[in-house]
């Protein structure tokens, strides 16, 4: 177990002694022979799961195995947005639970992840979009989630530099969730890792899973690049690679892996004070505390495990960006990258048992995984600890696809690249 609580006092003391006393944020644990629960995937969801298992469910013999360095998957590659502005009953309570956990996260894990509730504004450009957002906003409000409908002038007051006058698709208004915002993504992984580590969880990096050992229909452990690790229960939290790992246990999932690109501009003096999404093109943007515009758009749309995308989507995103805010023409793109999404067949996630005893699945996050991190960890921990779904995640069953009880926010059907 490493380190002490971060506090003004500890910071002051370390400043005075040249920061020589800080301990590693998490131990470089070596695998033990066996654990009660092994989580596969040292990303946000896996680390959060381990943390809540230890913190809320009192379990301690837990390991997280990670093939590379923790936080190197989508928790370190997303555009940092958190929100709970969902429509369907299966989703809203879950994402709102996540939002509430975000709101208390830093004090809970004693790590400043810079949860910044600067608001998420979805713009609309025609009556049909407006009505759909009214339906959504009202669903949020009935679920106790904050939502406001802004008219054109209210949008203008908030973001006066949007293209209101020369636009191909004029802005009519927007749906605002003030409690939405951004979180410093890497810090979420580090903060959960540090907090879990302090509760005794082993975080084992550079440990790639190569096989899932199953005996009599029940898991017994994992073959890894660092040897066999016994486990009574195994929780998969490796979105992007869920299909690959689940296949080791003979499972086929309702998931395709797709690449989603993300972009950041050079640092600028702040001028965008919320997250804004364009309703007439694929573009959403926020501005980080370092001043970079962080933005993205649609997935590339083909199966991919390469963490990079192609030019047509880059152009599509920036066409949207310039259509929405033409003042950014001379701002420069600094870096683009890609993350691999578990795109599920209905656009919603899975937190469920599988047909293999002791093997649990946390997958299918599409591009909504980051905002879900705390609730995903909590609900997966609940499932692993209690063998029953958490109250806010009851809809995320694996058999919902077969049954037709899909949670299809966009109404695109069983075609992952359209969600």
């Amino acid at each position, binding site marked *: 177990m490493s380190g002490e609580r971060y506090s003004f006092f500890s910071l002051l003391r370390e400043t005075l002694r040249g920061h020589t006393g800080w301990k590693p944020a998490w131990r470089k644990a070596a695998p033990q022979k066996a654990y009660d629960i092994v989580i596969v995937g040292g990303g946000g969801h896996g680390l959060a799961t381990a943390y809540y298992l230890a913190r809320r469910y009192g379990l301690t013999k837990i390991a997280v195995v990670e093939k590379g360095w923790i936080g190197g998957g989508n928790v370190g590659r997303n555009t940092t947005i958190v929100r709970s502005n969902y429509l369907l009953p299966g989703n809203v309570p879950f994402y709102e639970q996540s939002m509430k956990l975000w709101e208390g996260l830093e004090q809970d894990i004693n790590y400043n992840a810079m949860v910044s509730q600067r608001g998420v504004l979805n713009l609309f450009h025609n009556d049909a979009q407006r009505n759909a957002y009214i339906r959504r906003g009202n669903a949020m409000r009935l679920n106790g989630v904050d939502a406001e409908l802004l008219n054109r002038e209210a949008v203008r007051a908030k973001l006066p530099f949007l293209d209101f006058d020369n636009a191909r698709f004029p802005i009519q208004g927007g749906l605002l969730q003030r409690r939405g915002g951004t979180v410093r993504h890497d810090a979420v992984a580090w903060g959960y890792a540090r907090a879990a580590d302090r509760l005794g969880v082993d975080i084992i990096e550079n440990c790639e899973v190569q096989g899932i050992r199953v005996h009599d229909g029940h898991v017994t452990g994992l073959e890894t690049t660092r040897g066999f690790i016994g486990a009574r229960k195994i929780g998969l939290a490796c979105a992007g*690679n869920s*299909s*690959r790992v689940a*296949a080791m246990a003979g499972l*086929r*999932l*309702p*998931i*395709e*892996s797709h690449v989603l690109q993300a972009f950041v501009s050079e640092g600028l003096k702040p001028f965008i004070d919320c997250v804004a999404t364009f309703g007439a093109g694929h573009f959403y943007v926020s501005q980080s505390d370092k001043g970079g515009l962080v933005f993205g758009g649609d997935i590339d*749309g*083909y*199966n*991919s*495990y*390469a963490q990079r995308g*192609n*030019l*047509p989507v880059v152009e599509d995103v920036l066409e949207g960006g310039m259509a929405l805010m033409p003042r950014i023409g001379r701002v420069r793109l600094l870096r683009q990258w890609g993350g691999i999404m578990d795109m599920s*067949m209905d656009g919603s996630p899975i937190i469920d048992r599988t047909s293999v005893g002791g093997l649990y699945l946390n997958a299918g996050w599409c591009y909504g995984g980051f905002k879900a991190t705390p609730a995903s960890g909590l609900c997966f921990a609940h499932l692993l600890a209690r063998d029953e779904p958490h109250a806010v995640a009851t809809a995320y069953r694996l058999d919902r*696809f*077969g049954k037709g009880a899909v949670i299809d926010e966009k109404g695109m059907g*069983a*075609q*992952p*690249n359209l969600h």
Partner: protein
Amino acid sequence: MRLTCPHCGPRGLEEFSYRGDATVRRPSLEAPEEDWIAYVYLRDNPCGAHKELWYHGSGCRAWLVVERNTLTHAVHSVNAVSVEDAP
């Protein structure tokens, strides 16, 4: 990424749209429900060689079967679906 359409020649991604796994086969009406569920919802989703369907919507409107590596994005073959097994 570029695909060499067997009709039109090499073209950029912007002319195509994607529909996923080309190896799934539509079951008969009488097939067990599991088969239907697998057809509609379940995918191998491999990391590596992948046979997949693309539609040359902004070109000749042919459906194509593309063999492509999902890790490297290397394209190994492109054929009109009509010369492949129909999925």
